[in-house]
Structures are given as C-alpha cells and as structure tokens.
C-alpha cells in the first residue's frame, strides 16, 4: 500500500504493508537510520521518535496509524531545546557505543520541552524507557541538567 508520511517537515511516499512498524519504514525504506532497533517490543527506547512532539517507540507503531501525525526523527530535530540537549551531550562526553543515544536524546528533548527544569525523579521517570547497555545513565542525568541550565540562561 502507498502511504504519505510527514517526516521532518517533508511529505514522503512509502510503499509498505499497513502493519509494518514505523521504525522499519524509517530505517529500511527511507534510510533514516539514526533511529535504531534495539528490542522491537517497546522495552528499550532505541527507536524513539516524536509523534506530534511526543516521544514514542516507533517499533510498536504500525505505519498506518502514523499517517496523520508529524513525525520527527533524530535527523530532523532542531530548535533551542534540541540544540541545548545535543550540546550538553557533547560537553559531558555522554556517548560510549552511541547506539542508544538517538533514542536517549529524543526522550530528553521531549522531557525538556514540557519541563525545562526537571528534578532527578522527573528525569528518571522520563528516561526510564531508554536502555543504555553501556550504562551512560550517570552522564545522561548530568547532561539533562546541563541542558536545562542552558535553557534557563
């Protein structure tokens, strides 16, 4: 079936089965490979994208239910919050293997958009769906706080 998807500000045509998860359409059909596959069952957050600004797990969203939404991937994030988050991530040297980090950043941007100065508990709450096997969590927390400071400044 042919679907029209609104991704990163563009309208794109995709030919796919209606039940195909958005993740695989992004990765295999549209070559937006910044969004990662980690578990396929909403347990790791590597596939996190924004649907109308809200972080969701693209591995568990059939493409047919994403057609009316604005989809944003790591390749398409921009603006003050996104910049602050990416900048903070670099300053804190958060990444190790990096494979989870697109998803981490998408969740962090989602959090800070709603809550520019989260406390530890709120950070843990918003980020608990994102697994990092390299265990960079300690720096993720730090970087979110740094990004929050940047936004307040």
């Amino acid at each position, binding site marked *: 079936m042919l679907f029209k998807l609104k991704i990163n500000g563009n309208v794109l045509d995709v030919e796919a089965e209606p039940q195909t998860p958005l993740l695989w359409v992004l990765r295999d059909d549209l070559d937006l490979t910044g969004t990662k596959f980690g578990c*396929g069952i909403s347990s790791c957050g590597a596939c996190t994208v924004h649907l109308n600004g809200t972080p969701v797990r693209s591995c568990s969203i059939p493409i047919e239910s994403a057609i009316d939404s604005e989809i944003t991937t790591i390749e398409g994030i921009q603006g003050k919050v996104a910049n602050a988050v990416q900048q903070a991530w670099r300053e804190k*040297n958060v990444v190790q293997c990096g494979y989870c980090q*697109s998803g981490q950043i998408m969740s962090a941007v989602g959090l800070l958009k709603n809550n520019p100065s989260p406390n530890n508990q709120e950070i843990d709450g918003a980020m608990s769906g994102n697994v990092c096997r*390299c265990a960079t969590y*300690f720096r993720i927390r730090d970087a979110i706080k740094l990004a929050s400071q940047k936004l307040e400044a």
Partner: protein
Amino acid sequence: MEKNISRRRFLKNSAATSVSLIIGLNSKGILATNKTNTVINPFVRMDQEGFVTVIAKHFENGQGISTGLATLLAEEMDADWEKVKVEFAPANAEQYKHTFWGYQATGNSESIANSFMQYRAAGAMAKDLMIRAASKKWGVKTDEIDVQNGIMRVGTKKGSFGEFVTDAVNLTPSKNPKLKTPDQFKLIGNQDLSRKDNEAKTDGSAIYGMDVKVPGMVYASVVRSPRFGGTLKSFDVSKAKRVPGFIEAKVFPDKRGVIVYAKNTWSAFQTKKALLTKWDFSNAESRSTSDMVSDCQKLAENPEFEPRPFKTDDDKQPVKDLNHLEAEFFFPFLAHSPMEPLNCIIEPTKNGVRFYDGCQNPSGVQWASSYILGLQPQQIEVKTIYAGGSFGRRNSPAVKDLYQAEAAIAFALLGKKTPVKLVWDREDDIRGGYYRPMAFHKTKIGLDAKGKILRWDHRIATKSISKGTDFEKFLVHNGVDHFSVEGCVDTLYQLPNMSVGLSDFKSSIPVLWWRGVGHTHTAYAMESLLDMVAQRTGKDPIELRLDLLNSNDLKQQRMAHVLKISRRRSGWKKGNKRGFAAHYSYKTFVAVVADVSATGKQVHIDKLHITVDCGVPVNPDVIRAQMEGGAGYGLGALLRNEITFAKGQVEQSNFDTYLPLRISDMPEIDVEIVMSNETPSGVGEPSVPPTGPAVANAIFAVTGKRILELPMTQSGFQFV
C-alpha cells in the same frame, strides 16, 4: 570521520530522504575534493588543509579507543586536536596487528597498552617530517623550530602542517624519532579532551552495521534450534512464503538452523516466525537450571584439576579442625546483549568479498570466511564501522564461531553473487548462547583463634571458554583453562595454604568471554569471602586486606596504595555500614566503596566510589566513563540478570524478561584516578569485577544478609 561527515552532508543536501546510502563511495567523494592526502605512515594521513587523519587499528565499541589512539598520535605530533580526525583501518594484519598478539583484533582491555608506543612513534615520525621540511624551506636548524597545535614557528616565520605536507613526502622518515618525556605531555592526561565520536553519535549520523545498505542487498536471519546442540530434522516454508518480502529459506550444511532471506529486516523477522521447524534433540542440552546447579555442586566436591595445589607439608591441621567458615556461591549464565543486535554485511567484490561490520577481529574474519568461501585471506576486505557495543560478544576464541562466519555461509548458500546482511533480533541475542558461563564456587577458610587465615580451600566448577577453540593451546595448561580461575588462582593477597581446584562443567550451551571474563565470578567470591573473614574476626575490611598485601612486591604495593586512596577519598571509617571490594585485572587495580540504603528487602544503591590505578592515564575522562560504564554493566547483571533453562530451553527472550539496568538503578559514581607513570593498562573491564562484591558487602553491612546466589533478586532482594 569522513564517512560520517559525508553522510551528514548527504542528508542535509537531500531534501527528500528516499535515497540509498552507500558507504565507501561517499568517503571517496570527499577525498576527491581538491585536497592532496598524504600518507605519512600506516597510522596517519595528512592533507594540505592541515587535517590529520589517524588510522585506528582497533574498533570502537564505546570504549573510547578512537579518541585514545588519536590522543597518542596527536600528542607526539603536536597536532591541533580540533583538526584530528579518526578513520578505522582496513583488515591488514601486517600493518595493523595487535602488537602483543600478532594479528589484528581488539580485546583483553589492551588496546591502549599495545598501541602506546606504536601510535606515539607514528606521531613523532610525522612531526619530525614536518620539522625537517620546514627547516629546509626556511633555512633554519630543526631544533630552532617550535611546534604547537599544528603550527611551526621560528622567529617571525610561521607555517602550518598543511603547508608542508607536499614537501614532507620527499623526505625519508626517520626510524627512531624522539619521543616526549611525560612532563611534556599536553594531550595525554588532559582532562578536557572531547571524544572524537561525540558529534556523529548525537546527531544520528554515526553509521553502524545495522545502518548499512548496499545495492541489491537481501536481509537474512537465522532460525536456530530451541535447545543448544539440536539439529534440524525438517522444515515447512509454506506459511513463511506468504509473508510479504520473503525470498528464500536455506539450511545450514551442519543443520544448525535455517537461514531465511527477505527483502527487508521486518520481513526477515516475520518470515522467521512463520517458518515451521522440527528438530533432532538427541545430542541437545535437555537439563533445567536446577539440574545444572546440582551437577556443578557434585563436580566441586572432587576437583578434576589442580590449578593451585595444596602443599600438605605447609599445614599440620586439616581445615575441619580449625575455626572455619564455609560458603557456596552460584553465578548464572549471562547474555552480553550489546545494544546493537549482531549483524554484518557481506558483498562480492571484483576480487573476493567485502564485509561492513563493527569488526572486533578483522584477522579472524579473514581466516574464517576465506576458508568458507574458498578464497585467500587477502581477498576478504573488511570495512570497519562503529559497533553498538560488544562486551565480548563480537569476538570469539574460535573463529568458526564468529557471527561473520555465519554471514559468509549465508552469502555462499545464496550463490555468492548477492550482497547479504545477516541480522539478529533481540530474541536471537538473548537465546543464542555464547554466554558468560554459569559458575559454582565451593569454599572453606580456616582461621586460628586470633582470626588469622591459615587455610583457604577454593573449588570452582564452570564451563571452559577456551577448550575446543583456537585458544586452547595458549590458555589451557594441565587441563586448566585460565579463564575459569583467573582472579582466584593468581590473587594478589598472600593467603597461606591456599588451594584452588577446578572441574569443567560440560554442556552444549556455548559460552564466551563476557566483560571481565573469569574475574566476574572469582572477584565476587574472593571479595565476599574476605568480607566474611573481616566480619567473623572483627577486623576492618580494608585493614584486613592491607595486612594480606606484601609491600615488597610492586603489584601488591600498587594495590595497597589504591586501597588507601580509596579509604581516604570515600571517607571510610572502621565499623561504617558500607561495602568495600578491590580487584586486580587486566593489569589494573580497582577499589570500590559502595553505599546502599535498604528498607527491609528493598535496596537502593546510592553511590559508588571507584579508585583506579591503570598506569599513565591517557584519557582521564574516558577512563572515568569506562569505570562508570563497567560498574553499571556489572551492576545490571548482578541485580537482575540470569539466563535460565527449562528442559534445555532458554527461559528469557527479550528485555522484558532479561531486565536491563535502567537509569533509576544507576548510582552516583565518583571516580578517582591514581597518578602513575607505569605503562598504561586496561580500563574497559577492570571495574566490573569489584563492583559486585562491593555492593554485596554493603548490602550485608546494612541488612545483615550475605548474598551468595546471583542475581541478587534470587536472594530475595528488590532494587528500587
């Protein structure tokens, strides 16, 4: 890195996104843009704009080695750090071998150690060429030229490396360029260097195997026996054929499973689910975990091998007559579960094949796949890209067990003309074996009336990692696989009358090194036991350990130093309700103080204080990151992870049953790096072993309960 820069540009330039990304071609495109690239030596390339490209012989799986190798080279070169780029080396053992091993691979937390002099010398050689080129042009003596940040100066004359690149090519490189003394280091030991992979890994442009697509590529995935050691009897593809995108299904020649081929990753995974299979389990593992545990218990009664024999004449009294304590420890099988499920791509080239892979062992891939494909190793090209974690899983002591070998088989079965991407899903990862082996320790310690240790009887039953592999001849001596007993048999503590016995647990469950290997269980047992001795004798746990270290031995002296620094830095006091553990592995000394709080059986790990001596600290922030990450990786396994079996079948399947550490579990971490001028040693693995026992000892201090069985949730605790 070039390919990532190019991909980034590629994405920015393409308004729409429905185009294929082809790595390899892109990077050539960049190279062609009116720059002359000059190869100085196998480790560095320079261009006229002054960019220095360091060629990394080790793969980057998060451990920070691309930054590390760049640091070593740029240090001696006095290059401008902002202009240093990193690229991964091709498979070429002659140029890029691990200097300790003689072939090209990464592991044993030795990447910095084996490259320390090599990459520095390469940098010094490049700098020397630059200086000589400038001295010739300017008509000044070489020692008059001052170099800083890629700029050379003498008097009012000033020029950048880039300006002298073409002149330098005509000079003969010096064989023994002078290296800096440690007091001259500017980058080595610098706290503020940023990681070279920061940018690509925060904007989605870093390319992993999973992201590679080459023209005409098909996606393959494997259906394996639900029990290890089973072989395929028959399969029925009729339902699978109805999955959109299905291409083919082929059986492995040795019947280990069926490879399905499909048009994309999702179809490959769906096809696998639709495939009906029947298996022959006559040689398969059919025990449940509880049976395996009791088998290990029996094995430990009568050790098969004696890695450290008991010298009877040292001791007059048998252990049972002494004031003694006994403990049995159990450690489960563990999956590595790197964040990026295993995968790699293999495509035909004019002359052979090419792999795209986060490649930990390029030489192994050449050996294994050349054998499978009937080619010479040189005909196998390896394009190394970022790896989404490994923790040991991406390498193997038996090259035939490398996942790239399976990709070569999948490629061969399809006729050797079609590029194949072989992909694991998370279920394959968790159920696919190559685990940290289960281990059982049976221990008995004899004390005299004053609490002095008189006898230490330690028996281990575990499956050997090396036996039956290419490593057997190097690592198995008198029946003892060093991986089974490391960290125990060679403990730094002076334990009188220590004996270590070993029995091999036999099973078709494949096992593998897992971040920290044998130390992951031996350190837990050793450091828990010392805590038990301290508790029994009323001694302070750190004092007890210091008493067991001999200051005349350099290693023991360094360990004692780390213990003392840890005590001071963490504010440790005798009798405080905290946990302490220390361990020596990969030539590195690590001590951990753990602070936990508990309400009944609900425990939270508040803070870890980690002290490390890893010789010259090349990249302090990377070292810190590895201490944090290693502690977190160990902790995740320690708290909740186990691979268990029900009648031979793995009971876990994905992150809903093999529960990973999450952000709320992560304690605060303070890392203290001991200043040292000793040769740099490992940092990727050494924080894993002591973290577990430090936390266990802290839980004992706070709750009075000793955890002997892992994961800790099996001992009735919950982590909040």
